[in-house]
């Protein structure tokens, strides 16, 4: 379905004029402006709730956008991407609680652990085709979730990591200060999105698109498909783990739900909501889902029904995500105006 969507979306869009360098300057500019706006937010609105919302958007946004590198760009539909979100949260939380290393060290070390785990799991999974890939990634997710539940002495089992995560200040940044945590989350979000954008628009990003469209042909122009898939699987895992670390800092703990398959499901859900053919689709989807979650759970206890109806509307009604729809609509209007 996603491949189909990707194909259709690309057909209807007016293909952009290919010119590499100005695009990168534009992206740097957008990233800087976005960060400046986010950083100004606390000084305009004092609401702690709003800042909390943005922090959650940063955590889930990184996770969902990294999932789109797999789903939308490479055609790898992972149902277990949430395991890396959980791994990030637990890895970081445990490291801070048990070792007391500075936060940047724990951050890098968690990424290193995620990298190793993702290489091992990816090496097994990316050889598999479509549905098998989806289910084996799901199986690994369940494995990690069960491990967290049963390894009580380390992880606290179903209680999660309790007692808070210590946050010693570093480089003048004190993450126990809400504002500092907010700015750091925004910075991680913007840097993460920029890096993923860079990957998506690089020659490697186009290699991924070729693999999504026609992996056999890609191998006949000399591309090592397995290696490319494994590379993006690991990179996506790193960004997902970063999202998990933001979440762990935000709730000052880690819970088994972070590694449960429903997180992966929400990632897929976000991608369907926001759309997979535009880079920022998953980010828009994240904001939509979190707003929906917050408002619907406040209004009714049957929020599952409401979310189900919404996803049906996007899947059957629009047959694409919101951003896909918006971009196509603009392209059509532009086409009418010029033609």
């Amino acid at each position, binding site marked *: 379905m996603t491949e189909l969507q990707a*194909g259709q979306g690309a*057909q209807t869009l007016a293909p952009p004029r290919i010119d590499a360098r100005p695009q990168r300057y534009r992206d740097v500019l957008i990233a800087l402006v976005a960060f400046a706006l986010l950083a100004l937010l606390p000084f305009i609105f004092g609401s702690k709730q709003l800042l909390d919302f943005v922090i959650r958007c940063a955590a889930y946004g990184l996770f969902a956008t990294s999932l789109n590198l797999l789903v939308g760009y490479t055609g790898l539909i992972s149902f277990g991407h949430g395991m890396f979100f959980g791994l990030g949260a637990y890895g970081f939380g445990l490291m801070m609680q048990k070792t007391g290393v500075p936060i940047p060290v724990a951050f890098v070390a968690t990424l290193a652990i995620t990298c190793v785990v993702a290489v091992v799991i990816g090496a097994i999974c990316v050889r598999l085709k479509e549905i098998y890939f989806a289910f084996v990634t799901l199986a690994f997710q369940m494995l990690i979730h069960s491990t967290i539940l049963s390894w009580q002495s380390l992880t606290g089992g179903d209680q999660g990591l309790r007692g808070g995560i210590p946050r010693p200040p570093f480089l003048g940044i004190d993450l126990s200060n809400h504002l500092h945590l907010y700015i750091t989350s925004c910075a991680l979000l913007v840097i993460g999105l920029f890096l993923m954008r860079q990957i998506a628009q690089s*020659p*490697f990003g*186009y290699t991924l698109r*070729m693999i999504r*469209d026609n992996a056999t*042909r*890609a191998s006949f*122009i000399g591309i090592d498909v397995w290696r490319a898939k494994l590379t993006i699987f690991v990179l996506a895992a790193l960004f997902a783990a970063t999202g998990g670390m933001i979440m762990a800092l935000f709730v000052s703990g880690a819970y088994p739900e972070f590694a449960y398959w429903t997180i992966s499901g929400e990632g897929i859900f976000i991608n369907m909501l926001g759309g997979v053919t535009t880079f920022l689709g998953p980010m828009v989807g994240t904001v939509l889902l979190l707003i929906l979650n917050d408002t619907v759970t406040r209004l009714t206890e049957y929020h599952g029904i409401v979310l189900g109806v919404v996803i049906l509307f996007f899947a059957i009604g629009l047959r694409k995500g919101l951003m896909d729809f918006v971009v196509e609509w603009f392209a059509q209007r532009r086409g009418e105006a010029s033609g």
Partner: protein
Amino acid sequence: MLEIRALSKSFGGVRATDNVSLDFADGSLTAVIGPNGAGKSTFFNLITGALRPDAGQILLNGVDMAGRAPPEIVRHGIGRAFQVASIFPSLTVEETMLAAVCADQRRAGVMHRRFPLAETRDRAEHAMELLGLASKRNRTAATLSHGDQKLLDIALALVLEPKVLLLDEPTAGMGTEERWRMIDKVRELWEKQKITVVFIEHDMDIVFKIAPRIVVLCYGRILATGTPDAIRRNEAVIEAYLGSDDHAGAVA
């Protein structure tokens, strides 16, 4: 020089390629013909690494390609196009070419720079010009006509600057007029690029007219090789492949 030595491949009990030995001189143009199920596509799949041979050698300038994976064989200089155009539906013609050159320059994994790379432009441009696709550069592959998709498939192989180009039925699914245009193109490419071209073709008129050398496959074996005249007169070919007398008469 591409030398095939005693190449064999069986599927269950069926010998799809049976002890085939053939030489393709540098810069030669060869047509492979044979009835349905003669093992023509299997033969191509073995040379390009899509299938692993049971036995035999595939020597490209003395280096054995047998049993290697497709990406490696491509990098050694054996390119191919497919019977059903094998393209990247959501990429534009230009993106397809630029990305293919990237892959050929071993830059398919580059992440710190933006696509497209400046050093890929000339080759991409050249390939599009050669195949007459330059005016359709901004069309996504899925929106191209059937004939243009076949051309794009060939362009994909050609842009890698192969030493040997294998074309699996370049005229498949085309009308008579389109066939001739395609085959003229193939011949033109062969003359301009001075590469070794091997193509599979069903249309006897085309084969006898443009191929200096013809290989006839039947039940996985080589039935005959030679010039169009020699093949026309070859009795085994007339009997086994061209069949009834009136068909042979039509060919001659």
